[in-house]
């Protein structure tokens, strides 16, 4: 092969690689999530994405979330002054409350406002939920936001009751180092998401630990150890155990800790996953406490002056009609995060409950 031909071939392949990469760059937003720059919000004191950005979510649900002031997902407006008669709710929770799996108009805060609007009530819900947060993260933020934003009620959505136990733990927000923050923001601002996604997949395992390569010979005791007979035939869904008992927790103490974070009303909304099981067509997820324990927790909350709203029955009823509150067709129905149906149910229940609160009018 002469050098002219070789050069032609190399040029053809380089050009092809360029065009191929361009094709991926143009189409990847349909399939690849966003990687957004972030900052420590001065009001909340936690790391949030920047207002004005759009967060793409592409697995388990499919949505693009507009980021508003103070990193609020799906809420881009925040009037300076509170309107006359307006009732402001701060929504706390984890990814279940954050709602990046659903479009903004179906997120919980919008659904609550829509229902309230239909019944002539002026309610504004400020979504402060972040993926991975629990009570250890919510409680320090509560006093920081409530005065500045004229909050009337703190609404805490929990899918796992264990998230409340963390009230007695110290919050550990991961990013304090400004250099790390600056580097992270430079990369996420200047590199397209598909490059970041590719890099992440190359350098990290699915559980986000740094990827290591193994070249040593086996056997190695891992999840992919030597095949034992017909493994895929032996995969049975482990029958869900009877509702797991959490370790002994002093719920009175937990609720007092939550209560002490604010003088404002608090409404805890308990919305665990419901599933089909081998022993019942619908049941609460087996890892959650049994009804007796939930009743104890509710009692402890009430004793501490905290209202509690239990969504379980509403979820079970919906699931029995084959309208599952969790899961997406591009995930697994019945598993994962709350979907539009789930948020509708929760919003209705909350809207009914809000009538029992005395509003403080500015």
């Amino acid at each position, binding site marked *: 092969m002469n050098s002219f031909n070789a050069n032609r071939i190399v040029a053809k392949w380089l050009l092809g690689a360029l065009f191929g990469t361009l094709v*991926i760059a143009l189409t990847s937003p349909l399939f690849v999530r966003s990687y957004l720059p972030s900052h420590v919000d001065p009001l909340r004191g936690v790391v949030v994405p920047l207002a004005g950005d759009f967060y793409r979510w592409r697995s388990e649900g499919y949505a693009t979330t507009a980021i508003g002031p103070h990193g609020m997902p799906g809420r881009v407006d925040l009037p300076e002054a509170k309107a006359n008669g307006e009732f402001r709710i701060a929504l706390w929770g984890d990814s279940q409350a954050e709602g990046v799996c659903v479009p903004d108009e179906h997120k919980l805060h919008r659904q609550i406002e829509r229902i309230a609007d239909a019944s002539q009530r002026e309610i504004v819900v400020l979504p402060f939920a972040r993926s991975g947060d629990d009570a250890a993260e919510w409680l320090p933020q509560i006093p920081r936001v409530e005065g500045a934003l004229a909050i009337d009620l703190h609404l805490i959505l929990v899918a796992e009751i264990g998230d409340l136990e963390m009230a007695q733990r110290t919050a550990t927000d991961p990013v304090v180092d400004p250099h790390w923050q600056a580097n992270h923001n430079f990369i996420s601002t200047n590199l397209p998401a598909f490059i970041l996604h590719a890099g992440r997949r190359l350098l990290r395992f699915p559980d986000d630990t740094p990827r290591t390569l193994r070249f040593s010979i086996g056997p190695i005791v891992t999840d*992919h150890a030597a095949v034992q007979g017909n493994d*895929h035939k032996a995969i049975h869904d482990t029958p869900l155990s009877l509702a797991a008992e959490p370790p002994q927790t002093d719920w009175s103490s937990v609720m007092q800790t939550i209560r002490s974070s604010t003088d404002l009303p608090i409404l805890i909304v308990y919305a665990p996953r419901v599933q089909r099981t081998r022993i019942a067509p619908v049941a609460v997820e087996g890892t959650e406490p049994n009804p007796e324990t939930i009743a104890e927790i509710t009692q402890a909350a009430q004793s501490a002056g905290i209202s509690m709203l239990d969504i379980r029955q509403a979820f079970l009823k919906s699931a029995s009609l084959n309208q599952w509150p969790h899961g997406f067709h*591009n995930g697994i129905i019945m598993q994962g995060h709350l979907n539009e149906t789930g948020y509708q149910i929760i919003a209705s229940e909350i809207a009914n409950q809000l009538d029992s609160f005395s509003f403080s009018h500015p």
Partner: protein
Amino acid sequence: MLFTQPEFLIFFLGVLAAVWMTGRLPLRNAILLSASYYFYAYWDVRFCLLLVFSTLIDFCISHAMDSSVNATFRRRLLILSIIVNLGVLGFFKYFNFFIDSAAPIIESLGASASTLNIILPVGVSFYTFQTLSYTIDVYRRVLRPSKSLLEFALFVAFFPQLVAGPIVRARELLPQLATTPTWSNRRFYGGFQQLLRGAVKKVLMADRLGEMADVVFANPDYYSSSTTWLAVFAYAGQIYLDFSGYTDMAIGAAKMLGYRFPKNFRHPYLATSMADFWHRWHMTLSRWLRDYLYIPLGGSRKSSAVTYRNLMLTMTLGGLWHGAAWTFVLWGVLHGTALCVERSTRGLIPLQLPKIVRWTGVMIVVQVGWVLFRSPDLQAAGIMLQKMIVPSLGIHWYPPLVIGVLGCLAAEHLAWMTSLRRAMRLPWDAWYSPIATTVILWALLLYAPAGFQPFVYFQF
């Protein structure tokens, strides 16, 4: 080490460089043999002892057979080889199955029917069949035994096809191992593209389908009929794409090293008869069963009843080869029955039946077979089949990716029947090949499901 792991990429690049930089044959084969044993030891170094044992036994037996003219002695050696090879397979793969199945009888005799904690060596079903074919061919004098232990050991352990085939005949591979391959740009590129095609089938398609199939087959009573049907199609797609994807990667890797492997699949879901299906699905196993089981039993040369018996025996044992469970046996029985019915109705049913009708009949049998093949037990298979026949309520779940992948699979099958077939191979001289190759590489990096899923046929 899975073909789709980064470790394999590094390993394979190293082997490629090493073999193509060395011109001398014994060294080339030694490098490949060392690499193959390392590849196997990566799973479990203890398995290598079995491989060595199998290699040495059959090498010695084949030479003893070849140097003897005593028919009885030769026959005894052949039987010894069969007993050793099938004994290894039987112990590691079927001991617990037989104990569990015979437990009521064993216990009624006052003995204990306890099973053993046996680890199934990866690839044992494949390399025992491969070495068996070698000794049988030597016995039949259609093949001279390999003079070189190195070449024979490499034939047995050659890493691209060690763990899940294709089942290569000695007369196909040994002559290639006895000569130094010459470099060919076209063959290297073709091998690379085939390797890439296999990775796409496995990583981007099969694993996505498996995400649905695994969930529905684990709890078949949860889902609606339509979801059940979709899951069955998903599994049908998964097993084809997973296995043919692996085969493509094996054949592609071998090509890049300078060797030719036989085809193992020829678009089986285009089959318009059961016989045609088995001429397209896992072709190297089909021909092994035909040449070493069906034909020695008498094939179709004797009466119809004997032919049907031979078909049923061959397909039932073929089912059992896949796994130690009654669902695999039933799968084999189903296919055997379908072949018998097809054979017996030849001439009764006009061949002018539209192709679409014949194709639909084949697909129904094949899909029912996959339900048996995949279900964890007979009860689950029964639930799935009932849901497929009787409309029933349940969770509705229609993953867009599954529908999309199945659509792509159907489109690929149809396109393969047209002049697009060449284009789909991304020929070296085509202007679109660099663009498509780049897109594929990015897609593998970006869109693969999280985690590495083992190849389905590794468990066989």
